[in-house]
């Protein structure tokens, strides 16, 4: 690199670092912006960050190396990533990727010789209702077809800047099919906040409540406490999947002692990474006020002055629109100082973008990432409500939870609790995709049956539904009368449908590959176990599976469940165990060997030699290829 380049890179780094106030806790944002300007993170940029941020190189490289979307090697001017969820697979993403690679004369995973473009796969990008999808320099492109792929190849070859690509490529539809209380909400910005404030029992208590917000101290009575009571009365449970009672979480944070100089934080988890879910994308596209207002209500309850929206990197296209909403809310006096005229009612929200790490959906990993670190889940206890962001009391809630909090502030807890079932109050938005006529968002009161959802979305000949994504449940037809709710099948929102033409073994294998790719690598059982599991599933796929491998899969599952550090490891075997239990014939088809057979296959091992010599004739094979190409 010439001196001029070094200077240019340093200039970029200085600009970005200055905008983030030289704050190393913004490392992930700084790296993202440097990469957006430089196309990768060159060593010269790390040199400069080391100086301007005052952190060791190891720390910067450690963070940059953790996230899939950060590149410490050049990846081209155009970095194309095909979403590789099972729904993308079903819509033919692999053939499209091959087509693009052939068109551009490159190999998947590699950079073209002229350094112009790279093509690879990535985990589900949250466009399952309008796939197959890809990311180009982290901008979502939806509804890919062979024709669109050919056009993209042409645009790349002609070095057309992304800004000049047809706008239609980047169009992301909401696809709202069945709205209920949330998706049909007409809340005007500020309504919920005003309603929350009006929950103050009497004017005499107002001053203590104002102090509460300003000083981050919970007052015993009045506004914030009254609002908290409504949340509790509503029986609201977290929408991220675990279903923890929101009121209890907020109360614990509100009551957590503050050390000198500390404050409370509200964090919205928009790291919607579970394959098959995309409801948060829609909420943030068309209902952002509902979400931000819910965060502000939470801030009012717990006495927080700062909030973060942690937005997954795949939703980069939402950053500017969301920042515009925040700016408008500041102008409307719904964020910033003295919100809706409450003296000392100060709260503001910053958006942090993720960079391709599913694990950051786990709340303590998310907080680590917010602090500019590798997204490794923390040892718990202590929990974030007492020791969260920068070791200070923090609530982390799902996007949909905050939106529901707005509705509760507006309409009251009793109204909300009357919707749904006894232990699952309110509604749940399902992200429906896969084999059905009308994929998109369906909002139901809790208690809806799987069968009802299938009927509404026009699914027929259904073999299975994966509820709540790979870490959730695989439901077979004899269970279609089971219901969505914490009493029966809890869900974070994904609802992926498979008809009878699908190979459920391949579904499970896709999910296992996902977990292997997304394991953070911190603990031994998950880091190594997910790789061993992936290898075993590939072994079955390659026709070398035997009952021995079955037993191995079950043993690994036991180990992952009991020894893993966090939920990723605990659930990584779910798709396999569920499909083994319910779709065993799909496995038996792949369990060709009666006795143990090695995974090693000499003919497959010679593939590299065949590629190098450009041969694929019969004589270049050891035995006849019986089981198709390795994926």
């Amino acid at each position: 690199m010439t001196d001029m380049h070094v200077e240019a890179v340093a200039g970029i780094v200085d600009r970005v670092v200055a905008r983030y106030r030289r704050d190393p806790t913004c490392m992930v944002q700084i790296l993202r912006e440097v990469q957006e300007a430089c196309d990768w993170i060159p060593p010269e940029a790390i040199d400069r960050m080391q100086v301007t941020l005052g952190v060791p190189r190891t720390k910067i490289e450690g963070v940059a190396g953790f996230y899939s979307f950060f590149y410490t090697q050049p990846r081209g001017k155009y970095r194309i990533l095909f979403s590789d969820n099972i729904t993308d697979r079903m819509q033919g993403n692999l053939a499209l990727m091959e087509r693009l690679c052939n068109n551009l004369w490159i190999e998947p995973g590699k950079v073209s010789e002229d350094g112009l473009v790279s093509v690879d796969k990535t985990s589900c990008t949250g466009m399952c209702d309008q796939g197959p999808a890809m990311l180009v320099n982290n901008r979502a492109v939806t509804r890919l077809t062979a024709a669109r792929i050919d056009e993209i190849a042409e645009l790349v070859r002609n070095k057309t800047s992304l800004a000049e690509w047809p706008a239609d490529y980047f169009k992301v539809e909401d696809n709202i099919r069945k709205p209920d209380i949330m998706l049909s909400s007409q809340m005007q910005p500020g309504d919920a906040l005003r309603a929350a404030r009006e929950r103050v029992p009497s004017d005499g208590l107002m001053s203590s409540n104002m102090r509460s917000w300003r000083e981050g101290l919970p007052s015993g009575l009045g506004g914030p406490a009254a609002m908290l009571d409504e949340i509790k009365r509503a029986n609201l449970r977290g929408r991220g999947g675990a279903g923890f009672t929101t009121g209890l979480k907020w109360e614990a944070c509100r009551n957590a002692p503050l050390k000198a100089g500390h404050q409370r934080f509200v964090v919205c988890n928009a790291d919607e990474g579970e394959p098959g879910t995309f409801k948060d994308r829609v909420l943030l596209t068309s209902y952002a006020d509902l979400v931000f207002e819910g965060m502000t209500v939470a801030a009012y309850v717990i006495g927080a002055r700062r909030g973060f929206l942690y937005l997954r990197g795949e939703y980069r296209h939402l950053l500017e629109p969301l920042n515009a909403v925040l700016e408008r809310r500041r102008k409307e006096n719904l964020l910033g100082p003295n919100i809706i005229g409450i003296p000392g009612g100060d709260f503001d929200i910053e958006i942090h973008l993720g960079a391709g790490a599913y694990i950051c959906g786990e709340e303590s990993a998310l907080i680590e990432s917010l602090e500019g670190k590798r997204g490794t889940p923390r040892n718990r206890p202590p929990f974030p409500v007492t020791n969260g962001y920068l070791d200070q009391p923090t609530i982390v809630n799902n996007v949909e939870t905050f939106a529901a909090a707005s509705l509760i502030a507006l309409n009251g807890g009793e109204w909300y609790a009357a919707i749904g079932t006894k232990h699952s109050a309110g509604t749940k938005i399902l992200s429906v995709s896969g084999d059905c006529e009308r994929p998109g968002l369906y909002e139901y009161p809790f208690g809806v049956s799987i069968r009802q959802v299938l009927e509404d979305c026009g699914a027929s000949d259904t073999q299975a539904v994966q509820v709540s994504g790979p870490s959730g449940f695989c439901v077979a037809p004899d269970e279609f009368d089971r219901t969505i709710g914490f009493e029966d099948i809890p869900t974070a929102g994904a609802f992926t449908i498979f008809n009878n033409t699908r190979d459920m073994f391949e579904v499970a294998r896709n999910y296992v590959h996902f977990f292997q790719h997304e394991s953070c690598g911190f603990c031994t059982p998950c880091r190594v176990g997910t790789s061993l599991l992936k290898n075993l599933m590939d072994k079955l796929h390659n026709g070398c599976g035997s009952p021995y491998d079955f037993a191995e899969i079950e043993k690994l599952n036991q180990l992952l469940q009991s020894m893993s550090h966090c939920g990723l490891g605990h659930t990584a075997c779910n798709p396999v165990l569920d499909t083994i239990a319910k779709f065993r014939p799909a496995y038996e088809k792949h369990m060709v060997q009666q006795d143990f057979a090695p995974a090693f296959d000499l003919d497959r091992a010679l593939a590299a030699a065949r590629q190098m010599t450009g041969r694929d004739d019969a004589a270049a094979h050891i035995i006849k290829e019986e089981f198709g190409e390795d994926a």
Partner: protein
Amino acid sequence: MSQTFTLDGKSIPFEDGQTIMQAATKAGVFIPHLCYHPEFKPHGSCKLCTVKANGRQTASCTMRAMAGMVVESETEEINAERRALTQMLFVEGNHFCPSCEKSGHCQLQATAYHLGMMSPHFDHFFPNRAVDASHPEVLLDFNRCILCSLCVRASRDVDGKNVFALSGRGIKTHLIVNAKSGKLSDTDFSLADKAAQVCPVGVILTKRKGFAVPIGERSYDKQPIGETVEGR
């Protein structure tokens, strides 16, 4: 100090704030571990020290002891899982004990013996990892790294140098050193650093000392790892 919990039926006294591991070690009871080191903040990543506390499996190095807690450690079930974790560590890296100069001093090897590991069981990954011989006094053989991060913690928390860190993710997680070249010789690492002393396996090796102590007379040749705990 009247509080106690039971560990495999034995009453173990503990002080407020002590972890199960700390209290057990003080009482002279060995719990297998690799990433735990009494001088550093518990990390909880290797999971070898997993025990069943009140019926729930948890890492004993990070779990605080509580009065009346019932802890199981030396059960066939838990040891079988520990053995599987050890096997995972063996196949993940490139561990060839007979040709490794750390043999006999190696905690991974000693733990494998302790747990009765008779084979690696799983298919080897045979990762392609480099060796860094750039430093005049110390050799880094990344093939044997088990990602315990003890050197990371020692360099950061004791030496104040940040010579080591983990980068990458998942199965691609790896140890890096604090130099643009990636070479140890370009860092301020020195043999006197705490980080030079803490590697439980054979990654950080002092040059020209490899066989100063002959095989057969090494730490774990004389005393199996399970007997190395001394009550204090």
